[in-house]
């Protein structure tokens, strides 16, 4: 699932500005672009060394460079993942969404090309590629997956003649996968993490995030048409007669979800089981689950799901802490990361009744004692893990 996001605002602003100036002062032919006029009026500047190396015919792939590794996270989050230590999320003074994914920039050179088709595949023979038709020789692609080897190639058309580039390759850094849904904060895919079984959690089947209060048409399109979400699991409170803002075809399940040690409350038992049972039915996937901020109730459920799947404790905590890179999770109610990690620690202690067993084993034992069956645990695992 690859999706392109246009970045046109700056271009539009620039266009309006140019229009206004030209309206206001017609005939004022000042130089534009990057040309620096000399006294004689001729452009100057250093020769474009890259241009002299470019072929006059054929297609040359430029970025990403062959065998390059690119991160799909911001530089700040990439460093955080590389040097991960619990409780070490850098904070900013003002709320800023810092967990949005970073698209991969592609560029190539084809002299005189009228248009190009960019092909991206996970196979060196370029089978089953994702394709992009563009008039430019640069494009930004989002929704690539972390921890993957990709191959890419460009087919250009110049004066009706097709020209194909060599196949180039790049890797994406193996990080958590954050996701952009316009109007929704704190979104990520819980997939991609390695588990005790040697299998990874599948990408593209379980998304977590904040609520849909600011969701607009563009966001609905992304969630439904691109991510393919089939079920909205709303953890805020159990309500009747409500339907998902994603549309009529989307299954809506609501529970008054417990969070942190609240899962131990007898009053919350049915809600706990109901939210987990959503993940037993393969027909429900892909699932988007959320509370208001996507941190506490959502974080508790993500903790349980990842633990059932056999994800390491470090990766479970990393998934939780990403909320503190979002404008919602880390700021809106003034809760500090240290305080909330303390709450998560209490949850872990509640579950880790037998210190000789793993988090996965203890979580399974806890949930079976709470009323989930072994068959239900197995169905959740089967749905979450790669085949």
């Amino acid at each position, binding site marked *: 699932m*690859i*999706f*392109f996001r*246009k970045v046109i605002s700056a271009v539009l602003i620039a*266009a*309006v*500005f*140019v*229009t*206004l*100036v*030209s*309206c*206001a*002062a*017609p005939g004022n032919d000042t130089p534009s672009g990057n040309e620096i006029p000399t006294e004689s009026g001729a452009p100057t500047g250093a020769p474009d060394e890259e241009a002299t190396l470019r072929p006059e015919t054929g297609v040359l792939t430029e970025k990403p460079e062959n065998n390059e590794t690119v991160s799909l996270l911001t530089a700040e989050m990439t460093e955080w993942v590389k040097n991960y230590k619990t409780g070490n999320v850098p904070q900013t003074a003002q709320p800023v969404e810092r967990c949005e994914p970073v698209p991969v920039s592609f560029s190539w050179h084809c002299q005189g090309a*009228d*248009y190009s*088709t960019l*092909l991206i595949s996970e196979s060196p023979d370029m089978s089953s*590629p*994702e*394709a*992009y*038709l*563009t*008039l*430019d020789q640069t*494009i930004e692609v989002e929704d690539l997956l972390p921890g993957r080897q990709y191959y890419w190639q460009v*087919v250009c*058309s110049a*004066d*009706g003649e*097709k020209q194909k580039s060599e196949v180039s390759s790049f890797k994406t850094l193996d990080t958590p996968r954050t996701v952009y849904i316009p109007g929704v904060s704190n979104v990520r895919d819980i997939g991609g993490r390695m588990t005790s079984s040697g299998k990874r959690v599948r990408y593209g089947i379980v998304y977590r995030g904040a*609520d*849909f*209060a*600011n*969701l607009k048409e563009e966001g609905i399109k992304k969630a439904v*048409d*691109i991510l393919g979400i089939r079920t909205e699991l*709303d953890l*805020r*409170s159990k*309500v*009747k*007669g*409500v*339907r998902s*803002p994603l549309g009529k075809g989307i299954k809506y399940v*609501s529970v*008054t979800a417990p969070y942190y040690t609240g899962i131990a409350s007898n009053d919350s038992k049915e809600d706990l089981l109901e939210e987990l049972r959503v993940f037993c039915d393969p027909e429900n996937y892909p699932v988007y689950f959320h*509370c*208001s901020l996507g941190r506490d109730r959502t974080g508790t459920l993500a903790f349980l799901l990842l633990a059932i799947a056999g994800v390491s404790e470090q990766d479970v905590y990393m998934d939780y802490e990403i909320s503190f890179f979002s404008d919602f999770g880390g700021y*809106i*109610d003034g809760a500090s990361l240290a305080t909330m990690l303390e709450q998560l620690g209490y949850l872990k202690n509640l579950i880790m009744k037998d210190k000789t067993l793993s988090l996965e084993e203890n979580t399974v034992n806890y949930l079976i004692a709470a009323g989930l069956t072994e068959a239900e645990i197995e169905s959740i695992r089967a749905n979450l893990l790669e085949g």
Partner: protein
Amino acid sequence: MRRIRVFSLLLAILLITTMMQANSAKTGDALAEIPYGKHNSKVSPYTSKKTIVYSEEEAFAAGVPTGFSGYVYEIKGDGAMGFTVDFSDRRLPVRIVKAIHFRVYYGTDQREVRVSIDAGVSWVMRHEATKPGTWDDVVLKGENEIKKLANEDRNLGVFGFGFRNNEGVTNSTAYVDAITVELFDGDDVPPVITYDGPDHVVTTAGKQLILPVSAWDEGEKQYFSVEYVWSGDALDGEGKMKEGEYSVTLRAKDSYGNTSEKVISVTVGPKDTEAPVIHFAPDTVETLAGALPVLNFKATDNEDEPEITLEWSEGALDKKGRLNEGAHTLTVTASDLTGNSQVREITVKAAPDI
């Protein structure tokens, strides 16, 4: 000059709005609209069995505990109950709101009242029922707290009052009275107009004139919109310029009514009739079926930066916006500000192989 303005909620229009919202929470169908309704209200368990807004006279007749000052909200419910108010029509920027005052009367079986845009889930403030059986004055203040009650326009919008009752309580009653908004002191300094253009502007007929102008108000730390006040009959029915000589007064007003102006002259010449030119040679484009078209066509014009629109023939794109297999027509239109346009029809062939 210091000015403190207090807006009261005792307007009939607001009263009606609030009563409608309270009523709408009673039925299942209406409830379905609450989480994602026009005010972005979220799911809240704080729906009341009944909310009544009494006039002063009615309140006396209904036996509301004395001590109220005007219209009174009576809220009845079980474990949790509440109501919402809507300030949107008042268009009050939250940055000029200093505090929200209200009075609350708890019964003996209530624990607290919460105020927020989502009182069932979170709260901006919570006030504990320390004095049951009396009217208690409550103030919600603080820049960060008030900001959280903003709507999409950054104005004070819809927000709720949610009561938490003691465990097991049914048919509980509480009252809220005198919800008022206190604004910050005003200033008497007008916004500063910054105009990045010549004092005499030359343009052509048939266009809307948008000038590079902005207005910054240091006191309120924000930009205000600039109004164009034209001399004579400068605009046609669509707001486009007519040929002639004019002056335009650029006027900006801050939240407290302080006003700045700047006057410039405008010469409007005859209408431009030259269409933009689209810079794309091929009549046919060949690509892979399933490709996502990301087509930034370029066009130039003798006067303007043309606007470019794309229209695909029916069935060209799937729901993800990718090209279905087959031959499709893409209509590219480049238009200038006067309305002159060039239209190109391009055949896009999407095949299984490339």
